[in-house]
């Protein structure tokens, strides 16, 4: 673009609504979070006291915070890995069939539209120790299922619920990626005698690596920040903090524990993480891993 409109005041008027919203609902609360992180409120919210970095010191000395970090890592990487693996497998299968590709796409894509909170409820019902068909089936084959008591089982449940809707998303991107691979490459490899298994690992998978890396980042961001609903409608962080992710902990400490200083300090740490991930997303995806 090299031609512009000459008006001087109009552009300000045009960006004003967005700037006002951003200032009131984004910058102001973010600033508040920064301020609160340096103060401590008494239990009744009557007085505030400047405590410097004490909230952060407390936070990083709190074993529960480390536990929550580990929980978040296990959760996020499980969701990303499981979602990518299953979706890639289904996409390779869908790429192979000649008829019905669009039908399969439609049948696999709709869970993306389901709210994480509702995905949690749906899988919660399936795995309910009293009424859930899957839990009852597991019981029958000798695996006692009770996510109310068993932390590992609770983690498995939230991972499955969170992954479920993300498979649709990954599937769409993998299918598009697969269809962009030139047929001649695969044909050439086939003529050279490469088996279909070898063709996949030596040609298709490397060529998909930009898509895979992009999806890895997107899925991690999703698991970190958008799965509040899954956890809140199912385990609520329990049992014994075994599914208490960082985002859920901010909410819990702030609204239920009423520790505004500690919650604000956690918010600052999370903002740093989002910032980092956004930079990674923009830096690396613009350049793309290419061969």
């Amino acid at each position, binding site marked *: *673009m090299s031609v512009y409109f000459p008006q001087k005041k109009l552009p300000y008027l045009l960006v004003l609504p*967005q700037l006002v919203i951003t200032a009131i609902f984004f910058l102001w609360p973010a600033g508040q979070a920064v301020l609160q992180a340096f103060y401590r409120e008494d239990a009744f919210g009557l007085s505030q006291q400047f405590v410097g970095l004490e909230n952060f010191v407390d936070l990083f000395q709190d074993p529960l915070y480390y536990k929550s970090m580990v929980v978040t890592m296990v959760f996020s990487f499980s969701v990303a890995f499981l979602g990518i693996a299953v979706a890639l497998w289904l996409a390779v299968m869908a790429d192979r069939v000649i008829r019905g590709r669009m039908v399969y796409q439609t049948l696999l894509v709709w869970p993306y*539209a389901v709210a994480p909170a509702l995905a949690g409820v749906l899988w919660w019902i399936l795995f309910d120790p009293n009424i859930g068909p899957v839990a009852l089936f597991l019981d029958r084959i000798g695996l006692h299922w009770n996510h109310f008591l068993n932390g590992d089982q609770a983690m498995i449940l939230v991972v499955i619920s969170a992954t479920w809707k993300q498979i649709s998303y990954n599937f769409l991107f993998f299918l598009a990626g697969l269809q962009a691979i030139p047929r001649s490459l695969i044909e050439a490899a086939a003529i050279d005698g490469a088996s279909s298994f070898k063709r996949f690992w030596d040609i298709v998978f490397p060529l998909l690596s930009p898509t895979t890396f992009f999806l890895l980042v997107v899925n991690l961001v999703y698991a970190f920040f958008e799965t509040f*609903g899954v956890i809140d409608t199912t385990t609520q962080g329990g049992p014994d903090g075994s599914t208490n992710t960082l985002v859920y902990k901010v909410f819990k400490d702030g609204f239920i524990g009423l520790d505004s200083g500690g919650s604000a300090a956690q*918010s600052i740490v999370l903002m740093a993480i989002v910032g980092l991930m956004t930079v990674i997303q923009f830096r690396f995806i613009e350049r793309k891993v290419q061969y």
Partner: protein
Amino acid sequence: MIENRPWSRLLSHLILIIGVFIVALPVWVALVGSTQPEGSFNSGSIPLWFGDQGVQNWAHVLFAEAGSTLQIPVWHLLLNSLVMALGITIGKIAISIISAYAIVFFRFPFRSAIFWVIFMTLMLPVEVRIVPTYQVIANLDMLNSYSGLILPLIASATATFLFRQCFMSIPGELVEAARIDGAGPIRFFFDILLPMSRTNIAALFVIMFIYGWNQYLWPLIITTDDTYYTLVMSIKSMLSVPDGDIQWNYVMVTTLLAMLPPVAVVVGMQKLFVKGLVDAEK
């Protein structure tokens, strides 16, 4: 296909069908459960075929009350969700299309600074600044109101980027021609730019509608008055029954009703949805 092996294609179909089946399983169970009488869940398992209470259950939840803890019919919550989803969608598109217009077609001081401020909203999702944002809304006296549900969620860096990208691909000659013909910026915007970005707007509409409809945390913390509850968040109050005596059949009906509108949008407008998804992540 390189080698034409019927059995390998058959295997692919088989795996896809199993995948489709597993993906659909929870919805099937909920659908079947939603037609059962209340007592059928105490017997130790969920029935796997339809019961005879379907019409009664669905009608009760839609028009009478959603459950024992939620004495409000679901059609009211459905309406709230619709207001919120449409408000967020239209608001986002409106404010981001005009700010992208200003950033691409005008040159003015602080242009890039403003762009960076908008960019920063990407790094501040509601989830991470939840307590202070709640306090701001409380200070502005916007708890339990539609404006409180909608306004804080309509700033969107994603939509602004998308429109910026789309506008930057428009040739400068078009602007020049419009100016020679005597069209001002307002006229250019409405008569040329808007019609040109129709598909982009539609694709973004689909994505943003789903985003708005599926909001959970935000309505959960700023509404305490159930006339402002949205459908997706109301599920929480149906599940947190004091003595653990959950009315499963009503929970299932409500869950299905809450997911129906966005699923219908995705299936019905699949082309636009895929375009919106791919564009939004560029």
